[in-house]
């Protein structure tokens, strides 16, 4: 089958019926296409040959026949798929400047939220996207090198540990599944992006704010301006392929930042966070 993922077509070869079903749920039925002439990447998600096919069954993720990482337990098959897809994007999609960041958008203005895993950006993105914001991505921001526009992927949002029950309460009718315990990141689950976000994948966006989020339990919500210069340096740290682009990467990133107001943001309560984000004014 072919999976349409943002601007890419992924040929997915799998012998796992639960993966086929999950892809349709989490990417939307319109994302599943029949085989066609061209695919950007050819991936396999399969059970290994030999013992681990049956005993404590595993899955292998491969790109063009080459295994990308160690096998994972079969009940983490969708996680394997998502991590594999992240790897592929980070290593091969150099038409973009790629940043570890969530991207949400409302009224034509997008927020870029850089952060390492565990910073709370995925949780925040998951919450915002169910309170009127469109989701472009929860983890990987794609900035076009040609014109600085942000591309949308609207892939499933990965939630970890405590954020899973928190989001279940915050968005009672959210589709949250593929829960797997004892992974390297603890308990993980996937939340489907809202159908509206998935439907608008083809729409790019422009960043108006860059906000560095941090979850700080028990403290009141706080948002503080930070300098553009320090923002550039931090984004470089969160970027996978900035160094590959050389001077063009510097100029492109600087242009994006110049058009934004930049903030540090800490929160404990999602409702307070929503209020702050809703009150943001576009840069003059």
């Amino acid at each position, binding site marked *: 089958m072919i999976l349409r993922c943002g601007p890419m077509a992924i040929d997915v070869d799998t012998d796992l019926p639960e993966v086929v079903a999950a892809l349709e749920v989490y990417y939307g039925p319109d994302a599943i296409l029949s085989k066609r002439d061209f695919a950007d990447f050819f991936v396999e998600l399969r059970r290994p040959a030999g013992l681990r096919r049956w005993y404590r069954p595993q899955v292998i993720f491969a790109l063009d026949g080459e295994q990308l990482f160690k096998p994972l337990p079969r009940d983490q098959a969708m996680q394997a798929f998502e991590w594999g897809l992240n790897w592929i994007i980070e290593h091969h999609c150099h038409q973009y400047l790629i940043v570890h960041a969530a991207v949400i958008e409302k009224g034509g203005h997008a927020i870029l939220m850089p952060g390492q895993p565990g910073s709370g950006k995925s949780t925040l993105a998951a919450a915002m996207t169910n309170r009127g914001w469109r989701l472009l991505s929860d983890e990987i921001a794609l900035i076009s090198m040609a014109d600085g526009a942000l591309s949308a992927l609207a892939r499933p949002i990965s939630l970890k540990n405590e954020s899973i029950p928190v989001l279940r309460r915050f968005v009672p009718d959210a589709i949250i599944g593929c829960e797997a315990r004892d992974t390297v990141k603890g308990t993980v689950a996937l939340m489907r992006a809202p159908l509206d976000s998935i439907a608008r994948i083809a729409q790019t966006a422009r960043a108006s704010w860059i906000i560095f989020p941090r979850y700080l339990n028990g403290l009141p919500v706080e948002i503080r301006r930070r*300098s*553009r*210069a*320090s923002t*550039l*340096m931090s984004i*470089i740290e969160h970027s996978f392929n900035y*160094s590959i682009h*050389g*001077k063009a990467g*510097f*100029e492109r990133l*600087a242009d994006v930042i*110049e058009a934004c107001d930049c903030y540090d943001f800490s929160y404990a309560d999602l409702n307070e966070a929503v209020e702050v984000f809703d009150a943001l004014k576009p840069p003059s």
Partner: protein
Amino acid sequence: MTRWRKAGDAELSWRYWDGEAVVYNDASGDTHHLDALAAEVLERLCTHAADVEEVSQAIANAYGLDPDDDLNAAVAGSVERFLKFGLIEPIPT
């Protein structure tokens, strides 16, 4: 006193924002974050070769400051870092 100038192979791109600067050096691939003073020092050395005292004096004049030991030390510290990162080089005597 050693006189300093921009390193021969350094190719610099600048952005100034709110009293700070970021500089990209195409030769090394490094990106640098400079505060207001460091930015002044590097910019001056890129335009004219000078020694630490001359740069201090020029900055003091431009901003109505005292060319005191603190200023000299700050300028000298910047020069040391720029040399380490391959942004400037000493002029051979």
